[in-house]
């Protein structure tokens, strides 16, 4: 297996998923996911509510443990590594959460500085400069001393991106970057992702259900449905796909009545899933 993976790494895969399965208790959410994420590309994971796309993202950053399968990230299977090794990898990744997940008791500047203070021995003055730089990159220059509660939804997302960028990650994850934002602000966040992609050639993985945003930022896309990969390909390939589920998703065709009820039930169970 090791050899196979190193061959794949040479092919430029940053992340490789092999038959990944994730369950909450008895219920399996992801039923064997396989795909590669190439270094430097922007991959958008598309899917409806309850499709398992958020679970997939949480598993990729190590917040959920897979029940079986492999996740090769920077040459290591994060499904099997020790917590200490996982921490090593986490220093190389950044994650922007749906609601920002900024620490409410700290200023924006302290939020961005936190990973630097925890993981580096940099001088306070150096950290201050880095914080200013990162905030400038996301268009929030001068907001160091604001509390997260004083920021609008879009600014919170930008601040969260600045925090995710603090450690100069090689891989950046976004959970629903445009959720809860008006179209103009959402377009601004899309623009920011495009700028980051151009400036740093980072590997970027975005989970979303916003089609317009997805087609704007993606190099390639994966469509997840009911815990399975339905389709994977470039934006052009997706657009011209004839797969019925892909067409249904892209053309925004509602589910037929009966399955809709099933989906509704599935959604209900998703919401009431036992806390972990």
């Amino acid at each position, binding site marked *: 297996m090791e050899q196979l993976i190193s061959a794949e790494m040479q092919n430029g895969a940053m992340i490789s998923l092999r038959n990944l399965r994730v369950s909450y208790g008895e219920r399996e959410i992801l039923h064997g996911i396989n795909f590669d994420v190439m270094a430097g590309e922007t991959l958008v994971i598309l899917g409806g509510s309850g499709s398992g796309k958020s679970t997939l993202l949480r598993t990729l950053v190590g917040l959920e443990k897979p029940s079986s399968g492999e996740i090769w990230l920077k040459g290591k299977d994060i499904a099997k590594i020790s917590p200490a090794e996982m921490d090593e990898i986490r220093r190389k990744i950044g994650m922007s959460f749906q609601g920002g997940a900024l*620490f409410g008791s700290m200023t924006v500047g302290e939020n961005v500085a936190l990973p630097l203070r925890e993981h580096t021995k940099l001088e306070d003055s150096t950290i201050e400069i880095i914080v200013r730089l990162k905030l400038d990159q996301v268009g929030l220059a001068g907001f160091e001393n604001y509390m997260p509660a004083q920021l609008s939804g879009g600014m919170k997302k930008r601040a969260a991106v600045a925090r995710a960028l603090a450690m100069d990650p090689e891989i950046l994850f976004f959970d629903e970057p445009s959720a809860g934002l008006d179209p103009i602000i959402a377009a601004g966040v899309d623009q920011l992702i495009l700028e980051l992609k151009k400036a740093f050639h980072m590997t970027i993985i975005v989970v979303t259900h916003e089609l317009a945003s997805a087609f704007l930022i993606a190099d390639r896309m994966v469509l997840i449905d009911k815990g399975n990969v339905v389709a994977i390909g470039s934006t052009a390939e997706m657009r011209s796909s004839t797969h019925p589920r892909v067409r249904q998703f892209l053309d925004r065709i509602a589910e037929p009545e009966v399955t809709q009820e099933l989906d509704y039930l599935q959604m209900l169970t998703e919401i009431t899933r036992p*806390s972990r």
Partner: protein
Amino acid sequence: MELTTQIGGTVTDGLAYLGALANLGARAAYYTFVGPFRGKPLHLQRAISQAMQAGVRALPILSLITFFIGLILALQSAYELRKFGALNFVASAVAISMTRELGPLITAIVVIGRSGSAFAAEIGTMKVTEEIDALETMAIDPIHFLVTPKFLAMMVMLPCLTIWANFMGVLGGGLFGVAQAGFTWWRYIQASLDALFLRDIVTGLVKSVMFGVTITAVGCHEGLVTGAGAEQVGRSTTRAVVVSIFLVILVDLVFTALFFFMTER
């Protein structure tokens, strides 16, 4: 059969809960005593601000409550003592019950209301807003960052608050002693000190440290297991208070029994 399985289930759940608390305490102990030597320095600044919040800011309300408790104790013991014309024993009765039992206990109850609930609400809210997840993806252990400073603060502040509570209780008793039992303030304090052995004070303080550990463990644990949604934070907070009060009383019983049998001979 039904009943036995139910009892068995409850006991298993209870033991699992205590196990989770012990695990939390052990990890906090690791970050306190081992972590600093392995490149994970303590968050002293955070511990100090927690100590301010949980300790110093609790002083006004704690003073008032324990003053009244001291006064109540004096009144209650005088009710019995005056039958024997032994009102001068009020001072020792108040001093001993405050330092051995009520000082630590009342302090713990006040701290549960102020801080145990706040820990659960703070951490629970952070769980709901994915801030705990954010810490983990930044390779920052929430136990190190959030929980350990709280343990440190509480283990230091609870005994301090308890000493203050003992003092205020004695003053409360003194009010009755001076007004009704013919003491002067000076003589009342003197009589209280004479009645006390160092042992009484120390056992109270040992208990208060254990109470601090219990309250922090329960508050933080309830916060960390908060489910999705804002209403879950309320549930966690309520549970933190109820479970803390129960466990503090249980710990109190265990230690009181322990001290009783240790000093029997």
